[in-house]
C-alpha cells in the first residue's frame, strides 16, 4: 500500500526547508503521487469545464489539502477524496462564481507571509498569472524542486505495483505473439494488446502502443511509433514497444520477433542489443555510476560492432507514475544512480528498410547492479 501520509509529510518537510508556504498541484502526476487523486483516461482534447484553470490541490505546511474541482465532472473528485483523510475539503466551482474569487478564498486559508509558493511545472499559464495577480509580492518556484527528487526513489510498494504492471504487460505480449502470422496488420496486433491490457487489469495504456514490421525494401513510416495497416510478411522483423498503467504505475516494454528463418546478421544484431542491455544493467550499481555513463556503456557495445549509427536515441529514462521522468539515461545526464531508482533500458538497432531490433525492460537499481522487474524471456521470438 502506498503511504500517502508519509509522502505528504516528507513533502511538507521539504517545503519548510525551502520556505514554501503553499504548493499548488493541478490534477496530474504530482497530485496523484502525493495525494492519490487518480488520473482519468487520457483525452486528446481538453474539456473546457468552467473554472478549470483554478482546479487542483492546494497544499500548505499545516493546512489543506483543499481540492478545487469544476462542477462539471466534480463528482469524480468528490468520490476520490472519500477515503483520503489528508484532504481537508473539496470546493466545487459553480458556473455563477468567478473562478478567481474561488482561488482567492482558497489561498486566504494559508499563512503565506514571507513565504514562497510552489507551482506544478505544468500548471497552466492562466493559473500562474492568476496566482501572480492575487499574490503580487510572492516569489514563485516550481514544484519539481520538492517532488522530483522524491519521485526518483521508489518505495518497495511502488516497485511492487510496477512489477505487477509488468506481469499484465507480459500477459498481453504473449497473446500478441500468438497473433503474429503473415497477413496480420500492425493495427490488429496493437488492438489486441490494448484489449488484453485492459482485460488483465490495467487502468489504460501508458502511451500509444507501437508495433512495427520492418522488411527488406519496404519504406519505414516516420518516427515515433504510429501503427499502420502494413501486413506482416515472411522475412519481416517485428518490434514491440508498449506499456500500461496499473494503479497509477507505468510499464514500458519491448521485445523483438522474426518471421521465418532469421538471417545470421539479424541473429547477431539481436545478440548485440541484448549484450548492450545486459552490460549497462550490470554496471548500474547504486552510487557508482552516472546516468550518462550507463548510456555510454550500452552505446559502446553497439558502436564496437559497427552499428552505432543505427542506435539513434537515448538508452532509457526514469519511469514511475509517469512513463518518462527524471533521470534520463542520455549522453549528458550527470545524476548518480541510487538504489530504488527505476529506469527503462532500451537499446535498439534499426536499419531502415532492412531490420529492426529492440529490447526494453524496466529495471530497479541495486548496490550490485540493475535488475529487471519483468520476467518475459529476452530471446528472439521466431515465428514459423
Amino acid at each position, binding site marked *: 500500500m502506498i503511504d500517502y501520509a508519509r509522502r505528504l509529510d516528507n513533502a511538507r518537510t521539504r517545503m519548510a526547508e525551502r520556505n514554501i508556504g503553499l504548493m499548488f498541484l493541478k490534477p496530474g502526476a504530482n497530485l496523484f503521487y502525493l495525494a492519490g487523486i487518480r488520473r482519468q483516461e487520457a483525452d486528446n482534447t481538453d474539456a473546457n469545464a468552467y473554472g478549470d484553470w483554478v482546479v487542483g490541490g492546494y497544499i500548505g505546511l499545516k493546512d489543506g489539502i483543499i481540492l478545487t474541482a469544476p462542477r462539471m465532472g466534480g463528482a469524480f473528485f468528490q468520490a476520490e477524496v472519500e477515503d483520503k483523510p489528508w484532504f481537508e475539503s473539496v470546493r466545487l466551482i459553480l458556473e455563477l462564481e468567478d473562478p478567481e474569487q474561488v482561488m482567492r478564498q482558497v489561498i486566504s486559508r494559508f499563512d503565506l507571509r514571507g513565504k514562497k509558493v510552489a507551482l506544478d511545472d505544468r500548471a497552466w499559464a492562466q493559473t500562474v*498569472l492568476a496566482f501572480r495577480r492575487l499574490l503580487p509580492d510572492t516569489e*514563485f518556484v516550481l514544484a519539481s524542486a520538492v517532488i522530483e527528487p522524491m519521485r526518483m526513489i521508489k518505495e518497495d510498494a511502488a516497485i511492487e505495483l510496477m512489477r505487477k504492471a509488468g506481469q499484465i504487460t507480459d500477459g498481453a505480449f504473449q497473446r500478441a505473439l500468438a497473433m503474429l502470422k503473415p497477413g496480420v496488420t500492425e493495427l490488429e496486433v496493437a488492438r489486441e494488446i490494448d484489449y488484453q491490457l485492459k482485460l488483465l487489469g490495467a487502468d489504460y495504456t501508458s502511451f500509444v502502443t507501437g508495433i512495427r514490421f520492418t522488411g527488406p525494401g519496404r519504406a519505414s513510416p516516420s518516427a515515433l511509433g504510429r501503427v499502420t495497416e502494413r501486413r506482416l510478411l515472411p522475412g519481416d522483423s517485428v518490434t514491440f514497444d508498449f506499456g500500461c498503467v496499473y494503479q497509477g504505475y507505468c510499464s514500458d516494454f519491448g521485445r523483438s520477433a522474426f518471421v521465418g528463418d532469421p538471417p545470421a546478421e539479424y541473429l547477431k544484431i539481436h545478440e548485440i542489443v541484448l549484450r548492450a542491455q545486459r552490460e549497462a544493467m550490470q554496471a548500474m550499481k547504486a552510487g557508482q555510476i552516472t546516468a550518462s555513463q550507463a548510456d555510454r556503456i550500452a552505446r559502446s557495445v553497439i558502436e564496437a560492432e559497427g552499428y552505432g549509427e543505427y542506435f539513434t536515441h537515448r538508452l532509457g529514462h526514469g519511469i514511475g507514475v509517469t512513463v518518462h521522468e527524471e533521470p534520463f539515461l542520455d549522453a549528458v545526464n550527470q545524476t548518480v544512480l541510487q538504489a530504488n531508482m527505476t529506469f527503462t533500458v532500451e537499446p535498439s538497432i534499426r536499419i531502415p528498410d532492412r531490420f529492426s531490433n529492440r529490447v526494453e525492460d524496466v529495471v530497479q537499481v541495486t548496490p550490485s547492479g540493475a535488475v529487471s522487474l519483468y520476467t518475459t524471456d529476452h530471446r528472439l521470438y521466431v515465428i514459423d
Partner: protein
Amino acid sequence: MPNFYRERLERVRQAMRQWGADWMFLNYGADFTYLTGITTPMYYPILKGLGDWITGLFFGLDGDPVLFLQKSFAINVEEQTWIQDIRVLPDGEDPDAFLARNLAVFPTAGKTIAVSKMLWAQSLLSLQAAAPGARFIPATNEMMDRIRAIKDEQEIRLMQRAAEITDAALAATVKVMKAGMTERDVAIEVDYQIRRCGGDGYSFYPGIICVGNGSDPQRHILTRNTDMVLAPGTTVAFDFGVLYQGYCSDFGRSAFIGEPQADALAAYRSITQASQAAMNIMAEGQVTPAQIADFVRDRVTADGFGEWYWYLGLGHGIGLEVHEWPWLRPGFNEPVRAGMCFTLEPKVWKPGVFYVRCEDVVVVGKDRANSLTKFCYEPIVIE
C-alpha cells in the same frame, strides 16, 4: 499552401488588438493547430526531456510567425505547416538561453505577451526570463472563443471527414456486436474501428452504457465501459468521437438487444425526431443556443418523456476541442452564426430501465443546420 491560415492569423491579431496584446506565444493545443496546421504530437503530453518547454509559436501584430521546436518535434515539420521561420533547439544549447537569445531581437520590453491558457508554468517562467519587462496575459477562452467558433471552409471539410469516419466506425462496430459482449468489449471495438476507418484516434475515449434487464438504478450514466453484459431487453448507448487532423467529432446512437421495450423505442423516436426538427430552426441569426436547448426539451416533454429528459443542456460547440463555446443551454443568448458547429445530444434516462441517446455534429447555415454525421436514426436492433 492555402491562405486559410493567414486569414485566421489576422482574426487572432484583431482579437489581440482588442485585448491589448502585442505578442502571442502558444504551445501545442487547439489554438496552435488552428494557426499552424500542426496537430499535437501524440507524445506531447507524456514527453519529458531536455528543452521540451521551449516549444511554441511566437508572433506579433505583423510580420512572420516564428516556430520554436525541440528536436523531436521538428521531424518532417516543414511538410505539416505553412510557417517558414522554424527554429530548432540545437543539441547542447541551454533551452532557456536559446529562448532568450531568439526573443531578444523582438521588442517586448514594456509590451504585453498573450500566452496559451494551458502553457506550462515551466515555459512561462522561461519566457518571463527571456522577455523581462514584458507583461503577460493568458489567451483566455474569452479571447479565442469567438474566433474559433466560426469554422472556415477548410475546417468544415475536415469535420465532415471526421464525421464520415465516425459513421463508418459505428457501422463496422454494429456488424460485430452481439448479445453477451460486455460494455468494455464494445468500447474497445469502437476504438479499433475508429482507427481502422481512418481516424487518427478517438477525440475522447468511447463510452458505452448499457441499461435495463434489472440493472442497478443507482448506476449513473457517466459510468461507462464496465463488465456489464449486453443482455436481451437492454438499451446500449454509444458516446464516442473521432479525432482527424486535429478536428473532433462527438456522436451517438442507441442500440437495443433483442426485442426493444416499447417505452425505450418511443423515447428514442422522440429524441431523434426532436433533434432533426431542431436542425430546421438553426438558421443564422434567428435563434440562440438557449432557445435551441429549450426547443428540444419542450418537444421531448410534449412526447411524454419530460420526467426522464436529461436534463438542462442539449449540446456544445465543437471543433479543435470537443467542448467549445457556446454551450446549448440556458444562459447562452447570443444568436448563432453560420459556420458554428454544435453537437445535438438529447437523452432520456429511466434509471434501471433504459437509457437512450442520439448525438450528431451539425453546422449552422443561412437557413438551417445540416448534420455532418449521417448515420440513420432507425433503432439499431442486435439479436
